């Protein structure tokens, strides 16, 4: 049974149709990256799972429990970290964590140990007596994560956990998430920092204007994007006749003459790049440059999305 199961999720904010029929499943122990431009519906979907948005259609289940029907049971099993720092600045770190530990009904005798453990995990032990308002942004983010971990939830819903952090703090958060993954937590994480998700996630879902554009492992998504793979070549003495011959090569969708290169767009064929190279050689042209466009998360994101919002 998947930990998270969403089917045909629709969410409306008044006249705005924010989420339009999203479906996804996240099995136990997986780190699922949720990618999309601002306003795509990522946070809304996460809030539905966090039981904060009761008005939706479709089904959303966590460990088989319906989110709409039994939100209190869901809250025992999830830890949700929003994309802003929601911390009481009057309290110190110890009071803050003890407060939430008490609120989660952790027995008084165990609280000190539990708080100590999450502080150690988030590397905040030395800040235990500091006022929350004196912490840096990165530390506040780690404190928020420590709060989320207090009741040892099985599923973590992390909405932009690294947004607004400096590079060092981002790396620290990333390392922390890796540690949580190793502890077997199932994580749903949304982020704009795409290459970080590439390092962390076992699967990603790309969402735009409330719709899932693509989802699967990174390899699956790259494979899907082969359809639009571009190879940049620079040929010595290439004229219109050569370009016409290239257009006739099997697997070539179109050929575009640019200022200093030729951009060759290939059809869906895993071996198309290699075939193209062989074909160009057989045409007898001298190849000065042959560069398939690098496929990474940012490229995939840019190719799959158009910057639309719901």
């Amino acid at each position, binding site marked *: 049974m998947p930990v998270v199961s969403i089917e045909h999720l629709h969410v409306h904010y008044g006249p705005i149709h924010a989420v339009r029929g999203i479906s996804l499943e996240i099995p136990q122990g997986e780190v699922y990256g949720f990618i999309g431009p601002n306003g795509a519906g990522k946070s809304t979907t996460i*809030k539905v799972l*966090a*039981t*904060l*948005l*009761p008005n939706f259609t479709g089904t959303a289940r966590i460990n088989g429990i319906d989110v709409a029907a039994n939100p*209190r*049971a869901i*809250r*025992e099993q*999830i830890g*949700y970290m*929003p994309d*802003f*720092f*929601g*911390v*009481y*600045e*009057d*309290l*110190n770190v*110890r*009071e803050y964590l*003890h*407060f*939430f*530990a*008490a*609120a*989660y*009904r952790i*027995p*008084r005798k165990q*609280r*000190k140990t539990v708080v100590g453990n999450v502080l150690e995990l988030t590397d905040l032990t030395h800040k235990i*007596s500091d*006022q929350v*308002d004196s912490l840096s942004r990165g530390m506040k983010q780690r404190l928020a994560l420590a*709060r989320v971990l207090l009741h040892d939830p099985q599923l973590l819903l992390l909405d932009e956990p690294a947004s607004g952090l400096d590079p060092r703090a981002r790396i620290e958060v990333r390392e922390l998430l890796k540690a949580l993954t190793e502890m077997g937590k199932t994580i749903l994480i949304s982020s704009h920092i795409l290459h970080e998700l590439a390092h962390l996630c076992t699967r990603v879902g790309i969402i735009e204007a409330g719709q899932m554009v693509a989802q699967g492992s990174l390899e699956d998504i790259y494979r899907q994007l082969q359809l639009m793979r571009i190879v940049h070549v620079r040929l010595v003495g290439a004229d219109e006749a050569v370009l016409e011959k290239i257009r006739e090569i099997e697997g070539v969708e179109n050929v575009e003459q640019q200022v200093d290169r030729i951009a060759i767009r290939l059809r869906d064929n895993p071996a198309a790049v290699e075939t193209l190279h062989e074909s160009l050689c057989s045409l007898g042209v001298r190849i000065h440059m042959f560069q398939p466009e690098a496929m990474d998360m940012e490229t995939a994101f840019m190719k799959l999305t158009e910057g639309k919002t719901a």
Partner: protein
Amino acid sequence: MMRGSLALFTRGLRVDCRRWPMHLLRFLLVGAFLFFLFVAWANSRLEIGTAPGLMFFSLISYTNFVFITLAGTSFFTSSITEEKEEQTLGLLKMAGVSAVGILLGKLGPRLINALLLLAIQYPFVQLAVTLGGILPRQIQATYITLAGYIVLMSGMGLFCSVVAARTRSAVALMHTIIWMPLLLQLLLWITRSSGGTGPLMQAAQDRVGWVSIWSVVGRLQSVMMIGFSGGAVGIQFYAHLVGGAAAFLLAWLCFERFTRQPHTPGPERGGRLLRVRGGLRLRALPMALFVVIPGLAIVFLAFSWFRGDLQNGFDSVPHEWVLWESIGLAALVPLGVLLVSVLSPGSRRGAIGGCWPGVLAPAWKDLNFVSGGAIGLAFRMTLYSLITAMLVFLIDFSGASWSWTTLGGWMLGIGILAGTMELASNIGRGFRTEIQWQTLPGLMLLPRSVAALGWSKVLGGILALIPVGIFTAIGASLFFTSVWESLSSPFDSSNPETAVFVMMIPLQMGLHLILFVELSAFFALTVRWGYVALAFISSFFLYVVGSWGMAMVMMIVGMRTRGGPGGALILSQLTTIVVLSTMIVVTYFGIGRKLRHLAGQS
């Protein structure tokens, strides 16, 4: 300067047009006036009083006075602090808008709005002249008085807004500024009544009277008198105009000094007071009281016994003793708390772990960090002890015959009023801080219902009422005999309708207070500032319409159908109770809905 000022001015007017609480206020004001017209008409039908026009106009005038006072403590006090809280004041300065430009641009729209609200009434209240009992000159004098008062309140509100870092602090400062002249007037009156006369004393009393808000009440009283022959413009108008201008000037002079530092978006930060407040655990207070109260009781009993005061019973104890005991309690409670914190390491923070479990955790947090914790409770104990001492002194001073019942009556009345206001403020702040700190989603994710979360906030607010609760309980116990007598006398009468009617009064009052507290919580989730004022106005309006209105309607109906008002009065009370109960239920679910909505939106 003018360009920036005008830009701010235009924006201010636009924003006010878009704010629904402003429209709600206008709607409530218009609704109140229509209702007063109905009351005047009903009075003439029932042949109560001889001047319905005067009654109609008096009600409108005093309602305006209350509205302006509440606006002064909420509407005007946020003019600059809202820019500080939104961290946009620095941007305005960087855009080249001068200090006076910002002040004019921010205060202007609010002042114009308030004055327009007054001006628009003017043609309609001429109706009072046709109803009889009032002259156009009196109407002119009243509206000029109120206009002067608006200018004074706007100036003082602006000054508080400049000086304070947050709207909440500005409101507190404004209250202090309003109450200080009143207290000073009281002290001068006491001194003068004690024989402290002389030209200097008289002059001081006059000067304080000019800036005191009581001068408005005094002026309105004299204007409303039949046969008023004074001028339309009184000295109060000039005094308030000068006072308003002086406050504006002072705000201008202070502007740079108090807006130099940038402000953070969260609620009020740190500071020594906060550190001290957070440095003590709740257990410090009962430990201190455990020493102070028995100590004072022993001293009280020992001296009374020694002097033989107790031989004729408790009533024969000289009231001076109550005075000194109250002052002693006021002084010893904070000292005791400090002493306990020094002697007992366990009473200080550091070894915390005593947060109450489960649903009680938010109550623990609110009690400690919103209502002031041990220090806040000790402060309020001191305050209510001082109020008791002041009551004893004033009862004695006014020449009224001393009795425990009189003291108990005052304590009970003040306790209920202060307790209700405190509860509304505590619960409202409890919710407001969650929104300001963006912590509501974290709380809503706790594995419990929204209702449980709301009730834990209520509990936190109620626990902070321990000082006022003790004060009220002592008052109630002293007053108990006479209350019981007044309650039991209707039951002895042959008319059962009166007994039922009397029984319904405390129920109706209790429901009204609950509605007020609920509305404070609801508005705290809805508006950024002035939620207690808005709740006060709304619940007052509902109370007036719900009780007076229903009473009037039912009396007319009852007199027509049954020939007497007795049954109709009960029916009117019953209708009011049903209306209030419905409103309480609706607001309760409204709060839950709002909490869910805010948690989802943040």
